[in-house]
């Protein structure tokens, strides 16, 4: 067992950290306060190669392993959750799922442009009345010759106004498939597609979130990922990737809480000594350190399982569940340490507190993950082999060609 990160991982960490501090943090307080997202950041992420992380070189990506994706998420969320969310929906939910389920033709068609950020991908599963009970989808797809006609709407879609294409999960109408669901790559330019931003969010205010609508959208049948009946499995695979990015990102929030709290605890004095000398403050710092270090081990493990091509739904759920709770707890403690200053956006910790709450809802609420973990242990849930698994890293072809 080798826990060391490679020098390349360390360079990627440093690069993503510097990107966050240089390109995300300036002007962030204002963007967050005003609920404004900045489209230009997506272009900069593309130029920095971040949007192609963990996509094989064969498809125009950076050919880094899956642990690198987690590291990028951690360092970007250390700057702001809105930047990590881009990685979650574009890289995790969209690109990794396309890499797992796409035909060779589909991968060659879309991944090279997604890898450079020329196109942005997003994900549409959640609906106004289908969140944790995702099987209750109302968005429909009906076969019509060489097309499927999509109708319905999706809610809480990150990058709804910026993405060029969406991985959309629908219910199939008039289909013989055993599980009546299908997954499609839907391009924004198709007639009948529209989007609308959601305002007034508690957190991730510098990020774009909204609703997308399908009004008789004709999607070519070669845009289906998997086959009729695979839709739900595709969605669950997507969550294996999305949850990984969220779980890794949560460690970034904890690190950011520690960055702010350690500095503050060493500078702020009460009764002639730094508050860091007070045991109750030390207890909170220790708890954050625990969350960060345990959290890293959890996401490194999931990244390693992805590298090895192993099924990791259970471990990924654990990583997301534990890390997001730890991040919210760390942010709560960071506010506590900052006292009244923690209640103002003069310091960043109130933003961490608001942002970390959302991750306990999306990509499986913490209740869902609690149930999943219990069900695995009790023998009520098990993971069956999938038709398509995420390719192990490095790809065999690249082993022979590039190394």
């Amino acid at each position: 067992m080798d826990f060391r990160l490679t020098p390349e991982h360390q360079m990627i960490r440093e690069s993503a950290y510097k990107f966050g501090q240089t390109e995300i943090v300036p002007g962030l307080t204002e963007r967050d306060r005003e609920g404004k997202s900045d489209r230009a950041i997506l272009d900069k992420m593309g130029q920095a190669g971040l949007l192609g992380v963990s996509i094989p070189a064969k498809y125009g990506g950076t050919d880094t392993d899956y642990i690198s994706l987690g590291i990028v998420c951690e360092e970007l969320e250390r700057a702001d959750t809105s930047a990590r969310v881009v990685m979650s929906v574009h890289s995790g939910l969209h690109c990794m799922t396309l890499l797992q389920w796409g035909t060779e033709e589909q991968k060659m068609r879309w991944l090279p442009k997604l890898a450079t950020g020329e196109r942005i991908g997003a994900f549409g599963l959640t609906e106004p009345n289908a969140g944790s009970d995702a099987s209750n989808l109302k968005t429909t797809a009906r076969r019509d010759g060489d097309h499927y006609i999509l109708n319905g709407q999706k809610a809480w879609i990150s990058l709804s106004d910026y993405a060029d294409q969406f991985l959309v999960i629908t219910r199939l109408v008039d289909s013989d498939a055993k599980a009546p669901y299908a997954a499609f790559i839907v391009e924004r330019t198709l007639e009948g597609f529209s989007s609308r931003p959601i305002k007034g969010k508690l957190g991730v205010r510098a990020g774009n979130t909204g609703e997308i609508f399908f009004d008789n959208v004709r999607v070519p049948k070669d845009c289906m990922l998997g086959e009729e009946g695979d839709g739900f499995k595709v969605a669950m695979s997507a969550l294996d990737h999305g949850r990984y990015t969220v779980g890794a990102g949560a460690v970034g929030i904890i690190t950011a809480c520690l960055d702010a709290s350690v500095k503050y605890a060493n500078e702020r004095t009460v009764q002639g000594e730094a508050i860091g000398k007070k045991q109750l403050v030390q207890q909170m710092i220790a708890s954050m350190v625990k969350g960060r270090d345990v959290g890293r081990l959890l996401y490194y493990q999931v990244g390693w399982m992805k590298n090895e091509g192993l099924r990791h739904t259970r471990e990924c759920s654990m990583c997301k569940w534990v890390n997001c709770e730890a991040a919210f707890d760390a942010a709560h403690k960071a506010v506590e340490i900052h006292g009244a200053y923690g209640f103002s956006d003069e310091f960043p910790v109130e933003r961490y507190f608001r942002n970390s709450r959302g991750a306990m809802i999306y990509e499986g609420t913490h209740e869902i993950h609690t149930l999943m973990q219990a069900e695995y242990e009790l023998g009520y849930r098990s993971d069956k082999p999938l038709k398509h698994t995420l390719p192990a890293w490095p790809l065999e072809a690249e082993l022979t060609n590039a190394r």
Partner: protein
Amino acid sequence: MKILVPLKRVIDPYAKVKPLGDGSGLDLSGIKFDINPFDEIAVEEAVRMKEKDGSHEIIVVSIGTSDSEEQLRKALAIGADRAILIETEHIYDSLGIAHELEAVVRAESPDLVLMGKQATDDDNNQAGQMLAARLGWPQATFASKVEAAGTRLQVTRETDSGEEVLELPLPSLVTADLRLNEPRYIALPGIIKARSKPLEKRPASVMSSPKTRTVRYDAPPARAAGRKVSSVDELVAALQEKGAL
């Protein structure tokens, strides 16, 4: 133009280092290393020059153990074309480094040697000047701006009395000051390209005996607590008492 950038592996300048109990060295457990920040500025400047005019070749060179490969690889990721590691465990002082680099310069015949003005570990600020002297080359130290003008170089230097602009023929040597540029964050494709860029190992050729010797390492003395005064009058009196006024 061919640019040679010597770089040094140093303790992360933000790390807190402590001397070993017996003063024989530093406690390096858990300490991170990085490219000397002034050298990273030199690498960045070379890459910017190349980006302006694709004709440059950038060679980075480091002297030390195989640990320095990490820093050379990083320089390749920033945009250098190839790297040379002079692999040795020999202990050098600044003059020894200048000797060793002189051999590399004579073998590679660059038009420009661009390096940090000093390393953040020992802060000697000597190797660049000594190397220029050994080579008999013109030098411009503490550069805050470097502009190539045909076969000449215009360098703005930061001096105590203000900015000084020098024009140098090539080949010449320039040392980088802090304000020369702000190094970029490395784009991921750069990191991946660095995997396949050449990194050549050569044995040390000079290994001159150091003329200086490290006797022992000690932590700087702890600062004594200050004294608080409650008024300007009391401050003035306290300063007079110390003979400072």
